[in-house]
């Protein structure tokens, strides 16, 4: 009973102080990024489905992904399954070549029956390479809209965050060709 009270007190302190306990964290996703053969937007996740229906949107889906946090050390992300969908609007290219609007979503679920989950939504400008040997780039921002993660040893739900979304993409048939970073302020 005493242990329960102590744990409860710790949890209340942690939750009550949550606006102050903002954590700087970088969520990084890497994987292979391949465009689907269908010439339409992604529809399986809500945010990428926002690409305008009347536009020429295409769906990029990443496979063999991994999500891990890089900074702070307070957040723990165990091994899990990560899904990445990005709808890119070819109609609204700023120029030819240029920068296209992209609506993306990342969903993570811990494997092995663990409780951890995370959803990241982002909007970015996917720009053509600025040099012959350079990759395409994402420049934008987004949010950790809802997550259950281990923070400093304690599993907490309802975690959200806000940050910049940057990354690179190099068209290739195989191999890791996608990197996405959400550098965020996370509020437990």
């Amino acid at each position, binding site marked *: 009973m005493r242990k329960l009270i102590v744990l409860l007190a710790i949890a209340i302190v942690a939750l009550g102080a949550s*606006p102050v306990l*903002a954590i*700087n964290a970088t969520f990084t996703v890497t994987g292979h990024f391949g465009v689907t053969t269908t010439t339409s937007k992604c529809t399986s996740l809500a*945010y990428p489905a*926002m*690409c*305008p229906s009347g536009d020429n949107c295409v769906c990029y889906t990443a496979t063999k992904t991994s999500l891990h946090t890089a900074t702070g050390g307070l957040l723990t992300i165990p091994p899990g399954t990560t899904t990445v969908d990005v709808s890119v609007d070819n109609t*609204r*290219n*700023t*120029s*030819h*070549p*240029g*920068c*296209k*609007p992209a*609506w993306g979503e990342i969903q993570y679920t811990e494997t092995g029956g663990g409780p951890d989950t995370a959803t990241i*939504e*982002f*909007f*970015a*400008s*996917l*720009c*053509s390479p*600025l*040099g012959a040997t350079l990759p395409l*780039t994402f*420049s*934008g*921002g*987004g*949010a*950790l*809209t809802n997550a259950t993660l281990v923070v400093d040893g304690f599993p907490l739900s309802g975690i*959200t*965050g*806000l*940050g*910049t*979304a*940057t990354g690179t993409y190099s068209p290739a048939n195989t191999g890791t060709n996608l990197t996405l970073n959400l*550098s*965020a*302020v*996370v*509020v437990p």
Partner: protein
Amino acid sequence: MKRFAIGFAALWFALGATRVLAVTSAIRYATITGTASAPSGSQCTQGYANLCPSGSCSCVQVPGAVVGRVSGKPAIDGTGTADLFLTFDNGAATVSAAGDCTPFFGIARLTTTRLGSPSSETLNLNGVHCAPITTADSPILGGFGIATSPAPVNGGKGYGKVSGFLDPSGSLSLTLHGLITE
């Protein structure tokens, strides 16, 4: 007469070749600073800014912004002024307890002097505007491209990245850099 014709042809060829050689692609830079209006209740209607995928948008205008150079870097379009129209897609904002990031679509109509001659270009812009993250400023990140319509006058073509901030006070500061052919 024959010598004159040959000389004239050689001169004409040389001038033509000079023009071809003068077209170069390079990473060029620009800054845009100004003061934004309060958001209106609906999307902007100007060109690329006339886009509101979610159906819930507001329009912010930045009239008479200052177009400047980045010290020591080649300029995108000289110096002058710009009128900006930015549609913020509030219905597509990514929401968190720490704040939101809101997609935007916009244009910047540049009226400048480039290489001593009047120039005009319209930039199409897209990206996000977020609540303050690590500093007091509200960051903007995205991309731009030089529009083909209206056609640039004494300008170039190209695209690149835009970063900066638009604060609640209305203070706007953007830096653009991109691969520009002139």
